[in-house]
């Protein structure tokens, strides 16, 4: 039987970038956001669009649409769509495809008009949410993730102040990132007194809603050495799904999908929960990153918030988390998962200027799809 470890370090991230602009872009189609991000990331890699023969994307577009828009005919495509972490999962799919020669240069692309809704259409099956959720006022993510959060507060005694610390820490990083949308400092009191949306969340507990694109380019390790930038090795990868409807989540305070995904990635990489100098966690809500730390086994159950409340996660702290400013303060289009990969790559290359984490060798990227329903995990490193 094939060993997952055989896939460790066989492929590298060689190009990353965002779209030309990010924020509120009513003048820009989603396809333009894709094409900007892909052309920027391919240039970052020192490659040409004509080198790309594998296309991976999730959400509103099929990979065929991206290939058409770019003017190329890929020989490998993947459109796995399990929520915002799909792009993180696709890094794993790309590594497997590259390893087996199904493609030579893989591009994972994201473009979403989350704020301006240019050309956005809902296309999912409504049978479950339409029957069992919408009649009660449930709908967008904040109406679901709050349930996870109040249950966690009940079980572990976590508090609104502690969740607020996640927003405060993340904003400190955003202040150091010129591409972050919200950079002015905030306090715990600012978070608590912001406009209430759905208890336990004020608007500052909830991610931004923006228009942006992002792309990641991968190739096999032998070829990566010839690319423009220092290669970032995919040392471990994992994915998992547990549920979609929140009523089907076995324990609201613990993401089984994240546990499965993290276990796989850590075992493949041969690392433990304390082996990271930098962590990127999908932060659609302030309570998400702490629960992910717990589900990954990095924090004890109920204690993930301590990483934030004690300042470990902040620019001066011992374990920097969400150094781009996160979905909370940098950008969040709807399917945020491409952006933490971009930031981890930049940190591992040493490109981050005032927010550069010194001495990063190994970075963890962990994302969720839906309400901690799906998960993707990457262990990335600048050394083999």
């Amino acid at each position, binding site marked *: 039987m094939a060993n997952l470890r055989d896939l460790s370090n066989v492929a590298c991230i060689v190009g990353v970038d965002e779209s030309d602009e990010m924020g509120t872009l009513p003048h820009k189609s989603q396809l333009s956001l894709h094409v900007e991000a892909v052309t920027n990331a391919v240039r970052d890699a020192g490659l040409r669009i004509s080198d790309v023969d594998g296309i991976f994307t999730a959400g509103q577009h099929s990979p065929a649409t991206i290939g058409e828009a770019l003017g190329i005919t890929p020989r490998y495509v993947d459109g796995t769509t399990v929520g915002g972490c799909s792009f993180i999962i696709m890094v794993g799919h790309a590594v497997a495809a590259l390893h087996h020669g199904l493609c030579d240069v893989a591009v994972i692309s994201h473009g979403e008009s989350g704020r301006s809704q240019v050309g956005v259409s809902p296309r999912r099956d409504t049978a479950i949410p339409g029957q*069992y959720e919408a*009649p009660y006022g449930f709908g967008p993510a904040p109406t679901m993730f709050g349930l996870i959060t*109040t*249950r966690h507060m009940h079980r572990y005694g976590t508090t609104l102040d502690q969740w607020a610390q996640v927003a405060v820490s993340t904003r400190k990083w955003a202040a150091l990132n010129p591409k972050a949308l919200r950079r002015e400092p905030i306090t715990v009191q600012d978070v608590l007194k912001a406009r209430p949306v759905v208890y336990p969340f004020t608007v500052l507990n909830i991610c931004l809603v923006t228009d942006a694109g992002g792309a990641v380019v991968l190739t096999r390790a032998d070829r990566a050495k010839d690319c423009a930038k220092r290669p970032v090795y995919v040392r471990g990868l994992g994915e998992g799904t547990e549920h979609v409807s929140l009523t089907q989540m076995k324990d609201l305070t613990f993401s089984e999908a994240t546990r499965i995904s993290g276990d796989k990635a850590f075992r493949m990489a041969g690392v433990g929960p304390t082996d990271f100098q930098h962590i990127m966690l999908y932060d659609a809500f302030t309570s998400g990153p702490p629960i992910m730390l717990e589900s990954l086994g990095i924090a004890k159950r109920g204690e993930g918030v301590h990483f934030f409340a004690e300042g470990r996660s902040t620019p001066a702290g011992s374990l920097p988390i969400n150094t781009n400013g996160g979905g909370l303060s940098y950008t969040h289009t709807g399917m945020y998962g491409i952006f933490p990969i971009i930031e981890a790559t930049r940190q591992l290359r040493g490109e981050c200027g005032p927010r550069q984490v010194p001495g990063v060798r190994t970075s963890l990227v962990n994302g969720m799809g839906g309400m901690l329903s799906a998960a993707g995990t990457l262990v990335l490193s600048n050394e083999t």
Partner: protein
Amino acid sequence: MEIDRPLPNPMTPEAKPYWDGLREGKLMLPKCGACGHVFWYPRVACPKCHARDIGWTQSKGRGTLHAFEIGYQSFNKAFKVPTPYVLAMVELAEGPRMLTNLIDVEPDPKKIACDMPVEVVFSKLTDEVTLPLFRPVR
């Protein structure tokens, strides 16, 4: 009376006994004929043993508030229940969890606690549709 909520749409065939039951003031839950597992939501195979033998059982309509939120705005144009309102996940005594609203309670996080006992209230919207809402057991 004006309908203040989105009506369930679509109402799918596998859920017909559920919607039929609600019209008669009964909360019906799918139950596996092979392993006895009572589950939510209705589907054509048991999520525990995967048998295709699905029957129905009447819930006693009692349970606990598993988790809650307080909505300070509506997230759907058709949802016109006055704010603030309580979004709830209820864990029924039979085991399954459902999403619903908690009513007859002050929408104040200090007055609502996870695991408080709740009971079903049948709320008729139309001749076709009755929804199961829940209230604290007094």
